[in-house]
């Protein structure tokens, strides 16, 4: 199987879907002539032209609105937000319009669109370019929210998102574009509503998505060496949130850590922990431990930034504490 980066896996998914379905088009800031800020759309403008790879002004509200209105007239737009932080400029379009249109118009029309948005910090980009806001969107009925952390899932979920008839928020991470892995060629679809165990273990369960999945896998490998067997559950399907693999895992291990790159309060981990308490309370040997970023606007200074975002060491320390092995 070919080995690709997440960046190239995403590019392949876009290209294949554009070849497969003429109603698929891309729009966003500098995705065309410039080849994309993170080069995810590299080469597509040259291949498909400006009609299908539409460079827009820096105007997020009209980018998302254009995607909605095109979807309501039968196209399948894929809008790129340069970073998820910029989507907040367009949050009215995403929440009040895209998410609600199908329901508030009595099911009379669908909004089949994808918004791709990379989040995440660690590149000294400061408070307005470094955050992870997937929980904002995972809160909203009518949206689907996915956050893959492997190249195969990146391709499979993006293809599935483009074919889905609902608005899908597709979370990427600037820190994972270069992550490599095997990617099936051609038709490879990953369901948007299935989470799965990415690494088996029996001592504790780590629930993570996107870049934190990579961190969790690293941590699990290191924990193995000190005799702790960690099971890693990929929470790539955030809304609808598929809890089945996480619950099955917790029932087996009795210990759970939630790991996310965003702030803990009212976060993804809060939701996962609540569901575990509701569904598997009696199977727990200890309270669920939540790991997230420090509750500060991301600082620019490298030293401060390093202690702001969670990393492998945080997972290892938390795992030991949870199992009482200090």
């Amino acid at each position, binding site marked *: 199987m070919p080995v690709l980066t997440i960046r190239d896996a995403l590019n392949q998914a876009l290209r294949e879907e554009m070849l497969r379905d003429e109603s698929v*088009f891309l729009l966003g800031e500098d995705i065309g002539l410039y080849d994309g800020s993170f080069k995810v759309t590299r080469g597509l403008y040259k291949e498909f032209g400006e*009609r299908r790879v*539409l460079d*827009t*002004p820096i*105007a997020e*509200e*009209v980018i*998302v*609105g*254009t*995607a*909605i*209105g*095109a*979807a*309501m*007239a*039968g*196209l399948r*737009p894929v809008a790129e937000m340069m970073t998820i932080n910029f989507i907040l400029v367009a949050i*009215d*379009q995403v929440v*009040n*319009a895209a998410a609600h*249109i*199908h*329901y*508030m*118009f*009595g*099911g*009379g*029309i*669908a909004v*089949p669109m994808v918004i791709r948005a990379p989040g995440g910090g660690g590149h000294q980009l400061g408070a307005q370019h470094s955050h992870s806001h997937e929980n904002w969107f995972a809160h909203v*009925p*009518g949206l*689907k929210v996915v956050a893959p952390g492997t190249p195969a899932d990146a391709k499979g979920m993006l293809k599935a998102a483009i*074919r*889905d*008839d*609902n608005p899908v928020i597709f979370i990427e991470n600037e820190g994972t574009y270069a992550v490599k892995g095997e990617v099936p060629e051609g038709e490879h679809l990953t369901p948007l509503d299935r989470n799965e165990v990415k690494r088996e273990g029996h001592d504790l369960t780590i629930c993570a998505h996107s870049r934190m999945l990579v961190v969790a896998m690293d941590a699990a490998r290191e924990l193995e060496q000190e005799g702790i067997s960690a099971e890693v559950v990929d929470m790539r399907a955030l809304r609808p949130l598929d809890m089945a693999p996480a619950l099955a895992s917790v029932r087996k291990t009795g210990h759970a850590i939630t790991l996310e790159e965003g702030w803990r309060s009212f976060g993804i981990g809060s939701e996962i922990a609540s569901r575990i308490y509701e569904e598997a309370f009696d199977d727990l040997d200890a309270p669920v431990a939540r790991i997230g970023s420090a509750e500060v606007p991301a600082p620019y200074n490298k030293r401060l930034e390093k202690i702001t975002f969670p990393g492998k060491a945080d997972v290892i320390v938390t795992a030991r504490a949870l199992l009482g092995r200090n």
Partner: protein
Amino acid sequence: MKLDQRETVRRKNLLADRETLLGLYREMLLIRRFEEKTAQMYQMARIGGFCHLNIGEEAAIVGTISSLRPEDYVYSNYREHGHALAKGVDPKAVMAELYGKETGTSKGRGGSMHLFSAEHRFHGGYAIVGEALPIAVGTGYAIRYREKPEVVMSIFGDGATNIGAFHESLNVAKLWKLPIVFVCINNLYGMGTAVNRASAVTEIWKKACAYDMTGERVDGMDVLKVREVAERLVEQARTEHEPSLLECVTYRYKGHSMSDPDTYRQKDEIKEWQGRDAILALGNRLKALKMLTDADIERIDQEVTAQVEEAVTFAEESPEPDPKDLYRNVYVEERR
């Protein structure tokens, strides 16, 4: 032919077309009677939520929307009962939606501010000021993408022209040459704030200049004038892919919504505008042209009133949504 000559011909054609003129008259009267009934039913608590009436704005609404073809799209705001009716949506379905019934345009899930009909390409009422303009842009893009001879009419109030989305939308509509007519129903007040207290430029049509776009201002109390200009701008959008901004200066006789005590406007001002009533004016004009008699006017009134009564009966007798369907349509379930 020069533009002003074309206008003259168009006006002559319009004035000679009795069927069209009577159609405009009937449509305006239907909206008037429908909204009067709506107010009554709201006061009787048959209709809930917020409820914004079109009374006074009928000429602006009918003059613009009647210039469209069935395959053209309308995007509207929350004061849109009349917009839906003018685009051909069944009054029964509109009234049923106001009642929150399963037979309503949006199955009772939308209400007064969220009417919708895919069949009529009435692409919805949106209740966030200015929100639908970017969405109309997207439909305009889809029309160009598919090379269809269709037009989008995006209708909003004067208040929407102060919001960022308005400017973003006009910019790209012109930049991408989209077949969109932006229609500003300028009723002189954004809720309780007069246009000169909210906008640095009180002649809204001038805002088109910033985007090198055609901008026009028309007397929104004269349905024929509105129709003439709208026809031309719709044609320009359809054949030349040139978007435009049309400002219809009009007035809402009632408050912003049913719960507005209307303390910010002078009684004399309201009276003055009512003295220019578009429906009365067209009726008188058609009488002068010998196209209508008092008896005709009486008959048309009885007919539209009966239509409205029928809509109320339909709404009253329609079923409520079933509670077990609360979660239906949060997502589209069938995959393509």
